[in-house]
């Protein structure tokens, strides 16, 4: 029993300092770090992230380690199977498939990333304006978005490519014309929810103007859904590009994207399956990783999961 060990001196009053004051026990973490810690516990998302990092690295430095240039034709050695000289084999013109695959991956990733960037900039600005100002402004812009959205996007894309030269630039422009609308709507919804939060009212009562409120208060707090939308936009754009290339509307030879490589390979799929195997595996892996990573990111950033 503790009773016996107590002495009268134990019953002296404590001074203010002797009592343990207010201690903040938990370590200081920002919302971003919190999300990162949660993401780290998601194994699949982390594996995807590592695979993506690897793909991007090889894409950037692939040309340096490749044994052959991506354009050099070698009609002596066409349609070769993978070997120590040509790691991924060669195509019908004897060009090195390793080199061409990573070249194509580069183009595909660029299309994805640029399209996502355009979506981000245009979508956030438009969505921010619609959400913050509301009323008539919102009504007009929103109607405009709806009209644009109701035009079959594939039609717009194909028309545009027919009018302009088929190139990476054309594809990015074509994908961006309607691509940002989704982002704008997501941002608009977020801003509308957030703009009645008391911290926004507090900023307004301090005299903050619309641009400060949008940039400092609203957009940072809508960043979670924005980032998730971007990670989902990238694979969609890659996929759209592959599809267009497959139709022959993509980048033109000697440049190649993963889509054009698959398109080339498909003609001789039964005879030379490896020409199909590498670009198809790469594009599938990239898409899968982006999707799993985006999912994980959404879980990590979703405030509803927060305690």
């Amino acid at each position, binding site marked *: 029993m*503790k009773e016996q060990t*107590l*002495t*009268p*001196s*134990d*019953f*002296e*009053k*404590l001074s203010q300092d*002797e*009592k*343990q*004051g*207010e*201690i903040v*026990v*938990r*370590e200081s973490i920002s919302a971003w770090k919190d999300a990162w*810690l949660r993401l780290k516990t998601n194994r699949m998302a982390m594996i995807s992230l590592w695979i993506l990092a690897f793909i991007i690295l090889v894409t950037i430095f692939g040309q340096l380690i490749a044994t052959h240039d991506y354009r050099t034709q070698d009609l002596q050695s066409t349609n070769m199977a993978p070997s120590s000289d040509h790691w991924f084999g060669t195509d019908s013109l004897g060009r090195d498939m390793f080199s061409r695959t990573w070249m194509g991956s580069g183009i595909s990733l660029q299309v994805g990333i640029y399209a996502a960037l355009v979506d981000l900039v245009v979508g956030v600005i438009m969505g921010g304006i619609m959400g913050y100002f509301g009323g008539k402004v919102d009504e007009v812009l929103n109607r405009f978005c709806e009209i644009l959205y109701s035009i079959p996007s594939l039609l717009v894309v194909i028309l545009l490519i027919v009018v302009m030269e088929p190139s990476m630039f054309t594809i990015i422009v074509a994908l961006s014309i309607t691509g940002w609308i989704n982002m704008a709507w997501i941002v608009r919804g977020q801003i509308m929810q957030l703009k009645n939060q008391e911290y926004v009212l507090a900023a307004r009562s301090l005299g903050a103007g619309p641009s400060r409120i949008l940039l400092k208060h609203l957009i940072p707090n809508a960043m979670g859904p924005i980032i998730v939308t971007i990670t989902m936009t990238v694979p969609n754009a890659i996929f759209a590009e592959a599809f267009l290339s497959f139709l022959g509307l993509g980048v033109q030879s000697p440049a190649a994207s993963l889509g054009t490589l698959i398109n080339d390979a498909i003609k001789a799929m039964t005879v030379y399956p490896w020409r199909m195997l590498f670009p198809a595996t790469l594009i599938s892996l990239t898409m899968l990783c982006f999707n799993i990573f985006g999912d994980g990111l959404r879980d990590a950033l979703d405030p509803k999961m927060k*305690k």
Partner: protein
Amino acid sequence: MERLLEVNDLRVNFKVRGGTVQAVRGVNFHINKGEAVAIVGESGCGKSVTAQTLMRLIPSPPAMTSGSIMFKGQEILSKTAKEMENIRGKEMGMIFQDPMTSLNPTLTIGRQITEGLIKHQNMSASAARARAIEMLSLVGIPNPAARFNQYPHEFSGGMRQRGMIAIALACNPSLLIADEPTTALDVTIQAQILRVMKDLQERMGTSIILITHDLGVVADICDRVIVMYAGKVVESGTKWEIFKNPKHPYTKGLLRSVPRLDQRKDEPLIPIFGTPPDLIKPPAGCSFCARCDEAMRVCIDNDPELLPVDGNESHTSACWMAHPYAKPAKQEVSV
């Protein structure tokens, strides 16, 4: 008096990132038949977790529960999920703080009352309907027959809470657990709901556990009061003992920090300084030590036991001030 519920050394832990939150840390109390008992305390003191554990409403994991909850001589903590279904609604009813989210928006109020009656009491649909309409009129809903067929969104906040009470009491349970039932309501509506609860308790002999932070509500409808702080019971007794002769410095502090309508304006409020401890790392000694005006050296490392006050078994307090070595406070602060 006959004991309906006896809780012994109840502990509930939650695993979170960065440690284990010890939400309830060895709680003992009992409820007699026909009694209204309040559990008061601030947010995070473990009062809601305790209430939900009584009905086994907290999924485990993440919760880890130990101790014992004897209800009508049966151990609640060892019941299977199936057995609990028969106890919930039939033997114990519960009403929650937010009447907006605790009713199913896609079912009529009538349907939500009859559901339990048909399930637990094998009533026919028509008998259940008659009973449901009777319940609605008992809780003071005007025109109950028409209201029976309405959906929750057609009810106002106060009406919804009445509906919740009707659902909770339809099967005539022996225990009603009310978790902050009036916190979301306006004072004039709160007065209505409290009156309904009090009437029904007298009429049906139901025991009530009222979870609240509002000392005024406690003084109004409860017989006994259990004061919780940082996951422990720090004082318990009849409402007269608690309000007129509080022994624990936390109870005293709580009573002092609420202004009263009959208080003079220039009398300053006496707040309790600081904030409650983080229950990931609860203090080794008395959990109120850091905020206590009376804190002594012994309080830092030794947790006081809940002991009878002046040999009175009904009034208990967990404070080292009751120890014979402790010097009596210079003056008794009147509350």
